[in-house]
């Protein structure tokens, strides 16, 4: 009992401080955990997240033609490359590339180039899918927003974009059907 009195007179402040600190810490932890549901609700919802895959029939695409399909709200470029384009993509020296990747790492079948058609700079859709559109200085794609040039393998060659066009997960189900996702 007597020690308690001494505590109260001399070190009582410490006990009060401890209570303040623990109460404050619990309050902070509580508030933060309460904030989490609000913040996390802004992340992609279950229906958005639900794995979506698409199947594409690639038989009508002639050599030298491209099509754009929608996957997860994003455009996916599928190009049936010409022999010249494949040759160009393969003969490129790695030294000339910003994001170093050989062509064979970017395709499963060298005739078919499949990529997410979103510029890795700020998310525009590059031009070059249609014959009438500019293809940039390297014969692939050209992003009109800030002037990024991609080659026939979809690799960044010039302009502000830091990375090559992304290759999504995909597989050939047979010679004419492609599964993306």
């Amino acid at each position, binding site marked *: 009992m007597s020690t308690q009195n001494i505590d109260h007179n001399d070190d009582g402040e410490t006990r009060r401080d401890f209570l303040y600190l623990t109460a404050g810490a619990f309050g902070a932890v509580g508030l933060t955990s309460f904030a989490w549901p609000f913040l996390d609700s*802004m992340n*992609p*919802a279950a229906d958005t997240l639900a794995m979506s895959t698409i199947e594409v029939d690639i038989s009508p695409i002639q050599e030298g033609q491209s099509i754009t399909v*929608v996957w997860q*709200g994003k455009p996916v470029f599928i190009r049936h490359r010409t022999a010249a384009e494949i040759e160009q993509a393969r003969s490129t020296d790695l030294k000339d590339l910003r994001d170093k990747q050989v062509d064979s790492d970017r395709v499963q079948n060298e005739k078919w180039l499949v990529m997410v058609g979103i510029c890795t700079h700020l*998310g525009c859709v590059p031009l070059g899918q249609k014959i009438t559109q500019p293809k940039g200085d390297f014969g692939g794609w050209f992003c009109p927003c800030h002037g990024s040039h991609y080659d026939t393998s979809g690799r960044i060659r010039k*302009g502000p974009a*830091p990375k090559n066009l992304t290759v999504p997960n995909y597989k050939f189900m047979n010679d004419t059907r492609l599964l993306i996702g």
Partner: protein
Amino acid sequence: MSGGERAEFKNPVVSWIDERLPVFSLMQKEYGTFPTPKNFNYFWNFGAIATVMLVLMIVTGIVLAMHYTPHADHAFGSVERIMRDVNWGWLLRYLHMNGAAFFFIAVYIHIFRGMYYGSYKKPRELLWIFGVLIFVLMMAAAFMGYVLPWSQMGGWAATVITSLFSAIPFIGEDLLHFLWGGFSVDNPTLNRFFSLHYLLPFVICAVVFLHVWALHVTGSNNPVGVEPKGKQDTLPFHPYYTAKDTFGLAVFLLFFAAVSFYTPNIFAHPAHFVEFNPMVTPPHIVPEWYFLPFYAILKAVTFDIGIPFTDVVFVSAKLGGVIAMFGAVFLLFFLPWLDNHPVKSARYRPLYKKALLLLVVAVLALGWAGAQLPEGLPVLVGQIGTAYYFAFFLIILPWLSKNEKALALPKSISAAVLEENKSKAQTTTGTAT
């Protein structure tokens, strides 16, 4: 917020309320008898003008929200319906659309005024910081408002600007999906932008309140930059400056009305009239004119920063551009400490005046470059402008603070005013004879 001194009111109802909550005393003190430097020029109108524009934006915005549908499938159509079918919808929308542009015009002039006359200097640093905060909030609100009609331009502006965050190392991609609420700019993005676009103006109001509060603690700066020394240097706010502000506001609104009624789409772009298509980027994306200088700074960094002649990159061109753009705005917060020259007004600082006017030229040039395709000359202009912008804040201002010799300051505001009148009288008699 305590009772403080109360004014006398003849009206018994006013008096009754004032005894219980002294709002009338407060108004009397802060907007009636408030001592205000007597030498304001018309540059001092723009704070009041900006406030009126904020109120106009809120009023038009609240009514527009009653007719607008924040859904990716219906947003574009609902805006077209406002334009064609809703009674006076065209007027509300044109006032809101052009109101944003004129709000920024007023605020840019207001910022220039603050910089020219050194209004950010001691003891008004916090006042200035609140002002920059308002500017940042306005940019966020304006950007989200630009997206709501779900047009090609708005949707792609949203894509480009949110994608800036993907430049952040490690967490960029996840942050982007958090901002979008999905894997591309889509309905969840539109919904949250609408929610925040409605919220931010009220946050701006709160910060404006702090801005004005801080102003009424320190009192206003003035064109001479010498603090009032007594009653002879000031005038009561009412009727002198209520009248002057009203006149300036009327002239400003004349221009606003002329644009809203005769060339309402002068700030718009053809891609605003096409519904958003996530599969096709318009050939040329530009933000609203008031963002163009900052957009040009983003585009000016076209090179990686790393060890020369090797492949080692510390900061990619993309991240560098993003840092430069946000840095350009962020620097403004530190202006009171970057420039600590004891003389406020540029009238008495010839070198600072030249450097500041050159900054205005640089910002206008950046604005031009920001609107062009990123090739050739505009890139060069953007890089030179960006270099000057940062040099002004980080090199020129600190250097001038130490080395600039200012002209002799007048003894007081009254002395300056008398001096001015004397020289004016001389020139008039000179021409008469």
